[in-house]
């Protein structure tokens, strides 16, 4: 178990180091997310009512789009530089690579969210810094990244890879996005916890199911 965790840590560390050297991926995600939030804010500027009712949706659209960029890049760089073959040769369980990549992608996603959330809160005047809201952000991003990492690993081996990831990913992650939007909206409107908890439960169920299934099928994705 300890060696397993060490191997996962090694994959995460590799991703973080590689990213730190270029900072390409993170910058691209961040600038894209920033642009999305700004464009929405600008487009809805005059309609305060729409802004209030849409703000949770806008936040998740931003995260989902930025996430797609990050996921695509994070796996594409593995493939382009032949790094994936090296990883596969390592004498560890294949699921190590999956979990390492998921946590690595999750860290990037959370970093982007950490910077976007204050700006979003500032532009849309919404109280985002509540524990419940942050939990929703975490759970929603996790479900999205868990499915996204698996599909990204698949997509890099396909001819039409750059355009395919969102097409495959969006319909599958719809439950997570709906639940995340509803739950964050609930927290922003200070609804009683009982009304939000259904959505939180749905998020947790989705996360658990998909991480389990992805763990089971990841071997088949990287099989040569």
């Amino acid at each position, binding site marked *: 178990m300890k060696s397993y965790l060490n191997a996962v840590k090694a994959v995460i560390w590799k991703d973080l180091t590689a990213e730190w050297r270029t900072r390409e991926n993170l910058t691209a995600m961040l600038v894209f997310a920033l642009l999305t939030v700004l464009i929405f804010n600008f487009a809805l500027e005059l309609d305060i009512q729409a802004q209030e009712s849409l703000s949770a949706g806008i936040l998740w659209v931003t995260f989902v789009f930025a996430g797609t960029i990050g996921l695509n890049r994070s796996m594409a760089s593995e493939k382009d530089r032949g790094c994936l073959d090296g990883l596969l040769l390592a004498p560890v369980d294949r699921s190590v690579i999956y979990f390492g990549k998921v946590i690595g992608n999750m860290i990037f996603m959370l970093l982007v969210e950490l910077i976007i959330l204050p700006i979003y809160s500032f532009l849309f005047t919404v109280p985002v810094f509540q524990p419940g809201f942050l939990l929703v952000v975490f759970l929603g991003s996790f479900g999205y990244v868990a499915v996204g990492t698996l599909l990204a690993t698949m997509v890099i081996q396909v001819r039409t890879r750059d355009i395919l990831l969102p097409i495959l990913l969006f319909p599958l992650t719809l439950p997570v996005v709906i639940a995340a939007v509803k739950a964050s909206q609930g927290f922003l409107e200070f609804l009683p916890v009982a009304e939000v908890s259904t959505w939180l439960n*749905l998020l947790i169920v989705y996360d658990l*199911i998909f991480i389990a299934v992805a763990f089971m099928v990841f071997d088949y994705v990287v099989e040569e």
Partner: protein
Amino acid sequence: MTDKPRLLTYLDFLTVVVLLIAIWLVFFYAPVEVMMGAVQKVFYFHVATAWVGMLGFLASAYAGIAYLRKSDLRWDVIGYAAIEISLVFFLVAIIMGSIWARPIWNTWWTWDPRLTTAAIVELIFAAYLLLRQGVDDPERRARFGAIYAIFGSISVPLTFISIRLLRTIHPVVIGNAEAAAQGGFNMDDPMKIAFFFSLAAFSVFFTDLLWHRIRLGNLREELGKLRIKAYAEED
């Protein structure tokens, strides 16, 4: 393999016969519904095509699991065939539903759980086909297709639940209707006969098409093998 099985020919005939009977039952045997009028007739084939679409979707998920366990390409042919056919049936169900919804709900489309789920299933089917197109190696194509079909079959019920939690206006004709449902009605006996007969007829239709499509898939694979052999002999 190359000859068409006799049973399949019988099934072709049976399909034509049951479909004709179903059409007759729907248009001449079942009474016109009092409130909605003739447009209610859409219901019989709408439910039947949607049912067949779901059947194919489940079949593909099952074939996906079977392929991953056995790595037998025959399961891949089955899964692919089921999805291709279901894509068309589901589209027909959606279009027929819209035709009914326009006069009854006063709109072509609304984001109700069933409608949304149907739309998402179509998108997943389409994505599945796109995914397959991008992979040349048959084994890899089969593996990726299987995984995506399994993921889809898990995600779709969750989509349904999540939107059901939001709201619904879709009528539930079989089982308990919800208070908010609009356009519901009670079936009398001739309606029930027409309805269940159409369900059965479309199931036969689906089986027939699936069988043909699987045969086509197998033949295509054989053709590919023959081609490779012919090229090898030329060189």
